[in-house]
């Protein structure tokens, strides 16, 4: 009886222990027994450090895990994802593999093609992996930390090289020159500060003027808007067309007037030439008169002639008076 009891207890212990171990293992592996899941296959040239069990995420939310990683002909690697049955794939999906942390954990991200990060390498991989057949999504591997670190290491090497060259170039004389330069820069910065203070005051004034100018412009624009509105209303009544016709007519008349003025100007020029000729001749005549040449010169310049003429005029006046008084003395009218 005791032996049978021992057997039962031993069997129970072993079975319970096995069950505990299996359950904990399944729990840690997140295995879902009896749950239908949807499968998605993507193909890559390289899968980085993605392994079976790596997370599959959609927009950062866990949607499943990597179920298998298999080598395929033609240098391809197929990654089969096991997704929750309720998950809806994004439109035009692609699969991107990348590091999810700095500790070597990688994940597969299902993302729309339009949301793929910009980069020639990724686009090239997606273009190459497209066309794998029905149900096989294109995939690409994002640059991992190691690659970025390699680039950073290269940059650090260049910086070290530059620093070494700077160290060679930076001797005592260079240091003295640098100190002098720093002092100069200090003085320059002080001058600059003063200038800036002055200019800032000027700028304040300018800004006030600009503000006022802007206000004026605003008012002018308002007035212009009103004018435009008036023009618009005037246009609608046909007044502008009438004004334009009047203006055209006036322009024609102005052109005719200008032609007449032009002709008058030509005539005046000719008249001027004639006048100048007349004036020249008059001037020569007057010169001769002034010089006492000719009859008129003699008359103008000889006082005796003036006096004789004056006495002649007086005698002539007396004669005329006498003639009026005694016409028969001078006029004898006979018939036959």
């Amino acid at each position, binding site marked *: 009886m005791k032996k049978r009891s021992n057997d039962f207890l*031993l069997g129970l212990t072993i079975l319970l*222990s096995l069950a*505990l171990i299996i359950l*904990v293992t399944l729990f840690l592996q997140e295995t879902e027994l009896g749950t239908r899941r949807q499968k998605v296959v993507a193909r890559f040239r390289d899968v980085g450090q993605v392994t079976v069990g790596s997370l599959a995420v959609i927009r950062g939310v866990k949607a499943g895990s990597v179920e298998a990683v298999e080598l395929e002909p033609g240098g391809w690697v197929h990654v089969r994802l096991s997704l929750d049955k309720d998950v809806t794939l994004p439109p035009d999906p692609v699969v991107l593999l990348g590091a999810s942390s700095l*500790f070597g954990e990688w994940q597969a991200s299902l993302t729309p093609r339009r949301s793929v990060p910009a980069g020639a390498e990724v686009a090239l991989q997606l273009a190459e992996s497209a066309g794998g057949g029905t149900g096989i999504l294109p995939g690409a591997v994002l640059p991992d930390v190691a690659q970025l670190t390699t680039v950073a290491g290269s940059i650090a090497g260049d910086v070290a090289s530059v620093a070494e060259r700077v160290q060679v170039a930076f001797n005592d004389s260079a240091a003295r020159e640098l100190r002098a330069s720093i002092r100069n820069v200090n003085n320059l910065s002080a001058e600059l500060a003063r200038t800036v203070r002055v200019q800032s005051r000027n700028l304040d004034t300018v800004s006030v003027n600009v503000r006022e100018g802007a206000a004026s412009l605003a008012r002018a624009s308002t007035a212009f808007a009103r004018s435009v509105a008036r023009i618009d209303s005037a246009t609608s009544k046909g007044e502008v067309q009438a004004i334009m016709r009047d203006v055209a007519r006036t322009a024609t008349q102005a052109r005719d007037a200008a032609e007449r003025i032009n002709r008058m100007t030509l005539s005046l020029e000719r008249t001027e030439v004639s006048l100048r000729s007349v004036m020249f001749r008059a001037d020569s005549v007057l010169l001769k008169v002034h010089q006492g040449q000719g009859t008129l010169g003699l008359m103008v310049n000889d006082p005796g002639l003036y006096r004789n003429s004056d006495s002649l005029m007086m005698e002539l006046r007396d004669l005329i008076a006498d003639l009026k008084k005694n016409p028969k003395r001078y006029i004898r009218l006979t018939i036959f």
Partner: protein
Amino acid sequence: MVEGVGRYAREAVAGMGSAGRMVFGAVRASRDVRTWGPHATEQMMKLGVGSLPIGILIACFTGIVLALLASYAFTNAVPRYLVGTLVQKTVMMELAPVLTGLALAGRVGANIAAEIGTMRVTEQVDALETLAYDPIAYLVTPRILAGLVMFPVVVGVAMMVGLGAGWLASMGLLDLSSEQFLKGARFFFSEFDVRYGLVKAASFGVAVTAVGCAAGLETRGGAEGVGAAATRAVVTSAVLILVLDAFWAVVWLLGRSV
């Protein structure tokens, strides 16, 4: 001194030879089920079920201490959820098998050596031979079989208890949520971790019981010889556990990645 080194070397080689001979004899005697069968359950109960409390106690404290140690060691630069990773990996692959094995080496190895050694010095083993019983089949095979089966059971329970203790300690004593701990525990988990720990435990069980049986069967003298045999069994078992631990690490872990 040279003579002492030579004597120790001879005894070590002779011990390994006798242990190998005994294991080989136990395997050969496993065909004699009628001889060892009735005693297998009793030995499994004594070695396995009786050892569960000590295994659970060790795993419980190990899990708690590991969680606290990981939290202390990880600075701000390391994510806190890696506490779960460290507890899971360390408990399942190393501490549960090795610490439980060492504890059972003291408990089981000394027990077997003292029991068989007493039978040897009181000539009960000779009486078995006189009664045409194979002492290997009667005494050694059921014990080695019990060690082979029950060590993984005890260690498996210890793994789960250690992980659970670390989980509870992380939530209760550390500012770590259950989700964070589980994330870390699942981070690098593989069923290989469990398989590796259980295979190691089985090898420890065979080593501890075989060494205990060999030490008991080679007991000479009276009570003093029994005590010496028990001590030798414990020390040799402990050393063998560490050697086997390194052996499995080299064989299975070298060049393997998660």
